[in-house]
């Protein structure tokens, strides 16, 4: 058997279908990666090179745009704001959402399904419909332009997301694990924290990462609920793109865009082992 296995895969490598699949993969990669490539490329161009037609791929790279814009638009503070808000809302949502997801998955509760569904339905409301009421509430409470406001606002859509993902992870675990822990001397909380959480860690981490990315790139709430002090990177980008006085500054746009994307890419690369594991098996390893 084992002697024949390589021969089979050698044949598979040479089939037409296999080659077509590889071609399709390359095509999809180009479609998705080219805009990012172009953005990074443009961010290192001088103003004159940006608008040459036909576009140039070879030019003298410069950091001028970065240097200039970092100073002008308060980009560093906005990056810090974005990190605070993404981390804060991600962590808050993971704590609340994970516990709620566990309750929905395990505890026999009258109407648990309905509760879960209602929380999920709240995601069906278009964010634009919530933004203005949220602004009014925030102003009444004196909470506009504060980090905590954005953290709470993002949690409204991150918690249902975390809850439903984690509920799936927990449902995939055999309930005998907790039962065994409870016979071994744990309370229900003890079983959750000592057994279930450590096993769910890959799923938990990938959910946390996705939540933080969602918060990282959120624009609408940030636009409505902040103006200066707590404003985030997406707002800055929108500001540059929508500059009606001077026209869009493409150099600045691509430079700030690169700054926004790079941390996410580095972060994803660092945690990709967890990410893939969490997505692939939902933490069920017996």
């Amino acid at each position, binding site marked *: 058997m084992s002697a024949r296995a390589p021969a089979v895969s050698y044949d598979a490598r040479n089939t037409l279908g296999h080659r077509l699949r590889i071609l399709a993969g390359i095509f999809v990669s180009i479609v998705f990666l080219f805009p990012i490539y172009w953005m990074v490329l443009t961010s290192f161009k001088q103003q004159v090179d940006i608008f040459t037609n036909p576009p140039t791929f070879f030019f003298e790279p410069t950091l001028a745009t970065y240097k200039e814009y970092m100073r002008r638009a308060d980009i560093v503070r906005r990056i810090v704001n974005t990190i605070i808000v993404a981390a804060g809302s991600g962590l808050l949502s993971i704590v609340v959402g994970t516990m709620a997801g566990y309750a929905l998955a395990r505890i026999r509760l009258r109407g648990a399904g309905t509760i879960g569904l209602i929380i999920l339905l709240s995601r069906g409301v278009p964010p634009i419909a919530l933004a203005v009421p949220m602004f009014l509430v925030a102003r009444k409470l004196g909470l506009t332009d504060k980090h905590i406001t954005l953290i709470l606002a993002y949690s409204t859509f991150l918690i249902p997301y975390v809850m439903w993902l984690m509920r799936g992870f927990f449902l995939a675990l055999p309930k005998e694990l907790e039962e065994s*822990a409870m016979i*071994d001397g744990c*309370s229900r909380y003890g079983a959750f924290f000592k057994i279930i959480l450590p096993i769910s860690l890959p799923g938990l981490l990938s959910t946390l990462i996705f939540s933080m990315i969602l918060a990282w790139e959120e624009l609408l709430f940030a636009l409505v609920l902040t103006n200066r002090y707590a404003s985030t990177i997406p707002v800055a980008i929108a500001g540059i793109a929508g500059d009606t006085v001077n026209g869009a500054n493409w150099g600045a746009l691509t430079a700030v865009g690169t700054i926004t994307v790079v941390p996410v890419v580095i972060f994803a690369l660092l945690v990709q082992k967890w990410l893939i594991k969490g997505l692939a098996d939902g933490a069920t390893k017996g």
Partner: protein
Amino acid sequence: MGTVQIREVRKSYGAVQVLHGISIDIEDGEFVALVGPSGCGKSTLLRMIAGLESISGGDIAIGNRVVNNVAPKDRDIAMVFQNYALYPHKNVRDNMGFALQQRRVPKPEIAKRVNEAARILGLEHLLDRKPRQLSGGQRQRVAMGRAIVRDPNVFLFDEPLSNLDAKLRVQMRSEIKELHQRLKTTTIYVTHDQIEAMTLADRVVVMNGGVVEQEGPPLELYDRPASLFVAAFIGSPPMNFLQGQIIEGNGLRLEDNTVLGLPAADPKQRRQVTIGVRPEHFVIAETGWPATVSIVEPTGSETQITARLAGQLIRILVRGRTSAMPGDEIRLAVTPGDIHFFDAAPIPELASAEDA
């Protein structure tokens, strides 16, 4: 003290009652098997003893203390699950020591008890492995080790061998029996496999449809089944049944009017009866019930013959070898004590003897 008293225990899920007043008294050190077809309520009863299911009515007492409202962790029991429920992120050592850690037993004491259990079960070389690096049989042993280190009042086993292949199952069965003889801890063992129940237990409780059909030592159930259900459930291959009418002079008239001579009379003097004869109690003889051999299956130590008696297929188990060939006309004799009489009723259809 590892006594367990189950008194008039009932369980309902909403309007559906699944246990209808079960009473079982289990003595300290006893090995009791709860056996029955799936859905008979045996696992539910075990989970109620463990505290994993609430009790709808009646009492359960462990060591003379009513535990109806006691949390599982405070019942001083250990349980082995069908899927073992080993903690996948902990190695074997920590899996076995977890319960002791929860009870704040000092570390040297935990190490001592884990090592002792590992020695008994032959797990010493596996203590640093994770559960996923173990074979099915090894996982099963770890699950038992986890129970042993606790030194609990009662061991609960919920179909612990069902996930193992046939050969390993027989081996682990012997190990469980040996373990019980050595530790003498009260054990309640749930299984759907009557062979497991018979070979392991001091006492077998046969359950069906949420009630106890019969309880007693294994051989008593085999020799004197109280109902058609128990007769059909206990024994492998299963008992043969014939329905008919008792006629004058100790005869049984079957549906097709064949009359069989009965060597014994029904002690209850019924007119319509079902009689049962175990395959191993038929003797091929000069005189007796006429039958035609249709299949002969030798296994070496014994031979199973399927024959047609009055149009009905019956099974005969003969020690050693036989000269009978398909198509042969044979005569079957039965000693009087080996005929079981039951009320005439439909024969329960059970798969237990086959799938186990």
